């Protein structure tokens, strides 16, 4: 069973994603800020990371930069979640190797599931 790590600070989003992904049959872990996220990535080695870019303590970009320092971790596909489609953060995240992205203001659950499936399959 594929392991997915959600790094996100907004409760309702976490709940929705977790519920939906678990229903789709994934093993879901949650981290509520960047630091915790980075710690959990190293602990559980997920198959996919859903990473929010705007977070307290350590931002999504910070997490990605840390991941990039470790070639083994770098192989884990990341889907980033951004507030807007034209933000600087999103552009930077794509440069840092994000496989796909979700725009939170256009939050569309089935679309997110599609993107996850595209990355790691069912």
């Amino acid at each position, binding site marked *: 069973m594929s392991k997915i790590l959600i790094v996100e600070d907004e409760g309702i989003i976490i709940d929705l994603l977790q519920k939906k992904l678990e229903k789709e049959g994934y093993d879901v872990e949650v981290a509520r800020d960047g630091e915790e996220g980075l710690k959990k990535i190293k602990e559980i080695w997920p198959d996919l990371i859903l990473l929010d870019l705007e977070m307290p303590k350590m931002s999504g970009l910070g997490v990605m930069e840390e991941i990039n320092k470790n070639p083994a971790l770098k192989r884990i596909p990341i889907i980033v979640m951004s507030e807007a489609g034209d933000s600087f953060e999103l552009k930077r995240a794509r440069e840092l190797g994000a496989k796909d992205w979700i725009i939170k203001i256009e939050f569309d*659950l089935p679309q997110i599931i599609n993107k996850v499936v595209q990355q790691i399959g069912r």
Partner: protein
Amino acid sequence: MEDLLVQNIRFANRARFFLFFLFLIFSLFSKLIGISLSWSLIEIFILFLPANFISEISAIKIWPKEKAPQINSSYFAHQLIEILLLFEIGYLIHPLLFFLLAIFYIIFSYFTFSQRVYPRIISLILIIGYFSFGLLAHFQILNYYFPSPFFLSFSLTSVILICSVFFGEKISESSENILEILKGKTEELREKESQQFRREDEFRRSRTAWEREMEKRLKEILSLKENLDQEKQKEKELEEKIAEMKKFQESTINQEVRKKIKEMKDRNLTIIESFSDGILVLDEENKLFLINPQAELFFDIKAEELMDKPISELTKIPVFESLTNFLEQKTEKIFRKELPLKKNLILQVTISPLMKEKEKMGTLIVLHDITREKTVERIKTEFVSLSAHQLRTPLSAIKWTLRMILDGDLGELNKEQRDFLEKTYKSNERMISLINDLLNVTRIEEGRYIYQLLSYDLVEITQSVIDSYKGEIERKDIKFEFKKPEKKLPKILVDEEKIKIAIENLLDNAVRYIFPGGKITISLELLENEIQFKIEDTGIGIPRDEQPRVFTKFFRGVNAIRMETEGSGLGLFVTKNIIEAHGGRIWFKSEEGKGSTFYFALPLKKGKIE
């Protein structure tokens, strides 16, 4: 004068003969009785010489050079006697005395005779004669040939006496004749002179008469001329007076008008000067013609530095750089542009050509300070953007939470619960739609509406939009028709998502504001250079007076609000922006109560995207 001359000469000649006579007697007696010759010497000095000199001097004085007598024999004889006399003196008295006397005489006669009486050569002969006889006498050379001085003296004096007796009178006569002649000649001359004078006088008189005549005539002419001039002057004055009168008449008529014109001009100038907008006027050669104080303030520059300079020279001022290009195009349209001049100054520049009977006579540039409007607009946009962003994500979360609940992912619901949640879901959907519109608007206004152009078939896009409205159309019992073009349309470069939004907005309006049982027709048509989209409905229409505001932000028709409270009034605004960003045009026809027809046309070649 002549009388004095004649008297002198006469006296001199007489004295001379008398002297000779005396001298002869004395010399005879002196030799005979042996008394000294000093007496004769004294006599010579006292009587002869002064008399001679006086006559000569008088002659010199009186005879003008040109009237000098011609040389003749009697004169020559006269001179000969004088020489002999001198010789006598020199021989008898003393050689030295003779010598001195001779020199004196030479000098005297040279200057007098040569210049006055005789030609020079004769004078020379006489002088040489005096001198040589004197010398001969002195050295007593003649003594060798003559027996004694006495004899010589005697014989000579006798000869002289005889000569004097015979020729003396003649000489005198001749001299008198000469005088007579001279007198006659003088008379003649005088006559001639007087004649001449008379003639001259006559001439003068005649001349003066003629002159006087001429003068008179000239005066007449002059006076005539003067009269003429005066006439002319009068005429001129009259003309001037007429002109003045006319002027005065005109001025009295026009004074009021002029006063009003001047007042108007002053007022216009004051208006321009105190206008809160900056005003610049360029003449037909694009030289600065007018600048008002507000414009000076905007540019922080003095008018004097700019006046009459061509626009191309005024590069110091940023507005002119962009203006130059525009002005070169010679367009006759009004041109508007925003110009951020300084940190806290944004101007709206309006350039309009000044036309006078289709001739361009200059350019008017109006600078309107829109800093405040721009700032307010920016704050508003930022506020809307922020709120929209902040709302959108939670609304999505609510949507998907509701969806999950409704899908039964979180357990079974009873009917009532389901009904309530369905309504909540719909309300939430409306809210999301509104927020989406707002977000689109803010993106458009912030220039963040990014277009990704790809080749698409407009029929396909339209069909997909229609498909998503199928349920709604059926529910409202609308007669719907999609007229596809007979030939396949060429693909065009568009942003699929944006064009979908545009068509959606148009279709949404048509569906929303239609009377039950109405009809909607969508058609696509290939025109020369563009594809035209047309959507016709039998809806409520747009009131005529509201038609100009249809594409403005937040516009909703009064009848539309009455019919349906929902609606952001942003759809058409967004649609217009999308179509125009593709280089297309959008327009409509509408009649209140009967329906509306909206059109848009997209260019075939390529979309023009900002």
